[in-house]
């Protein structure tokens, strides 16, 4: 009997899942991948675009070209999923049935959910680097920016790559110093969190770096309104932060179709997913991977890559009627660009804080954790090659395991 596995989304998660599944299964399993466009953006590259460090064209490739032979790629917009009928409804009325479904459509940016954000000033003095067109426009705006108040503001969590706004601050400091205008620019990081980052130990390190670079930190600021004409961020409790140039990270939600699919998503439209097996709560034959899930770990490519192992094995087990393995531990691994050709690296999971030490081997490294180094910066740059040639084809990265490795001298799990 022929089985059909349908994967929604051909980004990091969808692509690596499709390629791994294709290798793991015979021809009696049909694999169909659906996406609404054919532009696969290397998202870590977006951070570099505003500073002229990456060319917009360099970080985009065709989605279909990343999928191996024997995988059907379809361009279509999903209207909704009816898990009770094992069916995906496409916009236009077509219906595709599945035996197993994988939701891998990532997170959506929702700038229109914040009052005033897409009003006057949007695209003129308000930009986001989380999306290629706005990141490119921001590059042009930054070139001419030589005095005034530059404010970086993630509106609320969760966001993709929660360290990216901090990296933007560090790179902006570097960029403005290189141009000799840093003294005329007031740089402020405005965050809804009570510190620089979500995890206490890393948060302290990062707050220290902000202070060192003379970047002001405004915490527990819940943005309620953006006044683009007046150049003001206004919080729900009526505090204000003035800006001349605002780099916003808009609210995120799950894929729009998840919200239209009965029982599939949580109140923000992320797929309600089991923490350790990646099976959805909606139906046993529906799984989710990457930014589209509601898992309490970072929305990041490294997480998606680590999830791939568990997901592909569990789809096999599900089809063979075996018990699923609960192996995903929330492992995340992020390079944090700190400017001046250095970067810091953090490694953590659901239970273990980012800690000092070395990666991937606890004592040998070679990459230092939670410490600025040139080696980490080089590794971050090299990663783009690894992404297209190792990660998307669905190979393991030598020496880097899906589960977090930590030693006793790095401290206890929290």
């Amino acid at each position, binding site marked *: 009997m022929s089985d059909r596995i349908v994967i929604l989304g051909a980004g990091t998660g969808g692509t690596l899942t499709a390629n791994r599944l294709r290798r793991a299964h015979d021809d009696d399993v049909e694999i169909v991948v659906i996406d609404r466009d054919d532009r696969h953006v290397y998202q870590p590259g977006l951070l570099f675009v505003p500073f002229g460090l990456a060319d917009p064209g360099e970080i985009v490739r065709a989605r279909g070209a990343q999928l191996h032979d024997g995988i059907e790629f379809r361009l279509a917009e999903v209207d909704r999923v009816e898990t009770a009928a094992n069916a995906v409804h496409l916009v236009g009325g077509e219906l595709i049935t599945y035996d197993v479904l994988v939701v891998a459509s990532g997170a959506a940016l929702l700038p229109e959910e914040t009052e005033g954000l897409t009003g006057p000033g949007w695209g003129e003095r308000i930009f986001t680097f989380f999306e290629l067109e706005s990141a490119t426009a921001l590059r042009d705006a930054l070139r001419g920016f030589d005095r005034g108040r530059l404010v970086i503001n993630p509106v*609320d969590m969760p966001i993709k790559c929660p360290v990216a706004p901090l990296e933007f601050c560090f790179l902006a400091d570097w960029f403005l110093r290189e141009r000799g205008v840093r003294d005329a620019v007031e740089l402020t990081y405005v965050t809804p969190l009570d510190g620089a980052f979500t995890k206490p130990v890393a948060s302290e390190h990062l707050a220290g770096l902000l202070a060192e670079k003379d970047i002001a930190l405004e915490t527990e600021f819940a943005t309620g309104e953006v006044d683009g004409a007046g150049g003001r961020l206004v919080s729900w409790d009526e505090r204000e932060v003035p800006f001349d140039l605002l780099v916003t990270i808009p609210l995120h939600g799950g894929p729009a179709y998840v919200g239209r699919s009965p029982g599939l998503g949580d109140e923000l439209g992320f797929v309600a997913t089991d923490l350790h097996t990646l099976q959805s709560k909606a139906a046993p034959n529906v799984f989710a991977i990457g930014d589209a899930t509601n898992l309490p770990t970072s929305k990041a490519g490294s997480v998606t890559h680590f999830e791939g192992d568990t997901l592909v094995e569990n789809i096999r087990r599900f089809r063979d009627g075996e018990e699923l393995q609960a192996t995903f531990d929330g492992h995340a691994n992020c390079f944090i660009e700190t400017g001046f050709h250095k970067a810091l690296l953090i490694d953590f999971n659901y239970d273990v804080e980012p800690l000092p030490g070395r990666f991937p081997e606890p004592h040998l490294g070679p990459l230092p954790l939670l410490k600025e180094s040139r080696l980490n910066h080089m590794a971050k740059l090299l990663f783009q090659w690894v992404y297209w040639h190792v990660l998307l084809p669905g190979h393991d990265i030598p020496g880097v395991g899906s589960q977090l490795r930590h030693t006793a001298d790095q401290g206890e799990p929290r």
Partner: protein
Amino acid sequence: MTSLTLEEAHVDLDAEGFFLQPEQWTREMAPEIARANGIEPLTDRHWQVIDYMRSTYLETGSGPTIRALGKASGVPIKELYQLFPKGPAKLAAKVAGIPKPRGCI
């Protein structure tokens, strides 16, 4: 961890005053916790939020974020800030007797 007598009951709180064991909480404790945090009296609108916090926690294992509260509790975000000033998600969690929201990652 400190132990505090709330109407003669021993409850386990963390350093910031959040309940560690939500089952130790009773409705009678809420006004007292609220008062200690500058909220008095507790209105029906407060209770609507408190009940939503608790039921979400019991269902999902973590308290809702402010966005989720604004979307699903029936109380708009602006009003949440009036009812529970400064940090509604945190303050309402404290009054509702559930652990400190983990925030996001």
